[in-house]
């Protein structure tokens, strides 16, 4: 009996050790999540630490890609400077998961795109999304009314999908707008996310509104949108206007002007739960709208570039932005 039990006990011990290790790792993660840049309370930058806010805790979320994580960090650090107790959860996955987290109270707010909110949450056809940022934000705001979600003001920068290609190919084909592709597109291969294929604000719109035909459309993981261009597999690829790779005049890639407006432009609107807005007071909304006012397309590209290309930590990039703009003191 004793002899047969021994290996079993050893196995159980091994499992226990593994479980502990996992637990430790999980805890470690939590700790680092909460550890946003510590700024001196009462810093004399533009954001004043309000003693009324201490003790009010806010959890800021974001979806799980660079631009969102940078925005989440900027908002979280700014709110901390304003005196709030801030936690972050910057890895919420898709917009459906993010919205669910917001409604369940796991997060108190997160940045969303006007176009995504209207098309994905309220099934608005893409061509009906208002091109004016304020109008789109107002429409989202009224749609959200019954859900106890408060929509803050939109950011200056616009993020949209776009048809992109290498500068070399663009010069070779002599194209600047999507309309210029007429006559050459039948020899070109387009890559985009799997869902692009069936969307009117993507491939379907390119075919119908512009009357273009492509040699082939290939679905690909959005994380590979530049790799397929580099590798020469794709002539054209669906990119984002705020992509790091597009930053600067001498970027290796260019995007084609969407002269028929197939791709809806989305400004970022911060979505906050009604409850958190009530509990946190006016500084919550004021702080976020203050720090996002400097976020133009160029600035956002630059911030994304520092994370994606220079491999800097999003928290450091956000901190630098807030310091350089004078919102917080370095």
């Amino acid at each position, binding site marked *: 009996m004793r002899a047969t039990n021994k290996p079993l006990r050893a196995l159980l011990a091994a499992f226990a050790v593994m479980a502990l290790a996992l637990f430790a790792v999980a805890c470690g993660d939590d700790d680092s999540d909460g550890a946003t840049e510590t700024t001196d309370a009462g810093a004399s930058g533009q954001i004043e630490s309000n003693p009324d806010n201490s003790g009010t805790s806010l959890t800021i979320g974001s979806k799980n890609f660079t631009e969102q994580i940078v925005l989440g960090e900027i908002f979280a650090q700014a709110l901390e400077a304003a005196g709030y107790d801030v936690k972050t959860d910057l890895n919420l996955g*898709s917009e*459906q998961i993010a919205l669910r987290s917001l409604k369940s109270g796991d997060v108190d707010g997160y940045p969303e795109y006007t176009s995504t909110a209207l*098309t*994905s949450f309220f*099934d608005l*056809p*893409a061509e009906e999304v208002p091109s004016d940022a304020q109008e789109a934000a107002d429409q989202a705001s009224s749609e959200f009314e019954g859900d106890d979600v408060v929509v803050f003001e939109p950011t200056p920068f616009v993020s949209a999908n776009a048809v992109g290609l290498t500068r070399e190919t663009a010069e070779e084909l002599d194209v600047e707008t999507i309309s210029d592709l007429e006559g050459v597109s039948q020899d070109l291969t387009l*890559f985009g*996310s*799997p*869902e692009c*294929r*069936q*969307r*009117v*604000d993507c491939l*379907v*719109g390119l075919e*119908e509104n512009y009357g273009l035909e492509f040699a082939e459309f*290939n*679905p*690909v*993981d959005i*994380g*590979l949108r530049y*790799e*397929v261009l580099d*590798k020469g*597999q794709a002539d054209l690829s669906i990119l984002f206007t705020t992509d790091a790779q597009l930053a600067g005049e001498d970027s290796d890639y260019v995007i084609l002007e969407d002269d028929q407006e197939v791709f809806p432009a989305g400004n970022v609107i911060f979505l906050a739960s009604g409850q958190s807005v009530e509990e946190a007071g006016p500084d919550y909304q004021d702080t976020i709208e203050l720090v996002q006012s400097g976020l133009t397309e160029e600035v956002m590209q630059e911030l994304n570039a520092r994370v994606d290309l220079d491999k800097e930590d999003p928290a450091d990039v956000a901190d630098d932005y807030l310091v350089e703009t004078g919102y917080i003191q370095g």
Partner: protein
Amino acid sequence: MIEISLLATLGIFGEAIDFIFSQQEAVTGGVQVGGIAQVLELTWTHFWLSVLALLVSVLIAVPVAAYLGHRGTGEFLAVAIGNAGRAIPELALIALLVAYVGVGTVNLLIVLVILGVPPILTNTFVGIRQVDRATVQAARGVGLTEGEIMRRVELPLAVPTIMSGVRTSMINIVATATIAPLAAVLTLGDFILSRNVYGDAGVLAGAILVALLALAFEGTLALIQRLLTPKGLRLADDS
């Protein structure tokens, strides 16, 4: 409360089944999606991609493991590869392979074969090792060559163990082929990945279809296993 959620669950199942059989407008509007034609097209791609990956996996894993098992060496190799292979993240592998083979069928085949080989490798090795040594000695005694012993004695006797590896591998491959639309091959995974277009009904329809395809594979492989198993072994199993 329970009744309401049960009805809701049936409701989405109903929508999913409707999605499989009849076309409907995409959630994002403008195009017709779903319906039997698209379902068949995606199922067909999912099918041949899986079959191809499974065949290549078997052709690689069985000879290697049979040889190692016969020699009685390389246990560490067979088992370590078997275990490590399951831990490889497929999406990262796809991205890594883009630099060498681009995206497309070749990329996916490599990924699926890397996923498919380990269970077959381990099971074949173990199956061959489990063949009664006395039987092998007897075969050698009546004058069979080493190659004949492997082909006519060890492999047939190891069929049940090998096939259980093949079946595990098949489930892994069919399930993982759902990520193929991220590398330019449209399988049933498209319904699952493009939720924004197909809606929840499409996602569930995709999951149902992948499960049905896996069941069909499972049935076929069980049949093949029965045909390959030596009569004597089959009788022993049935008794």
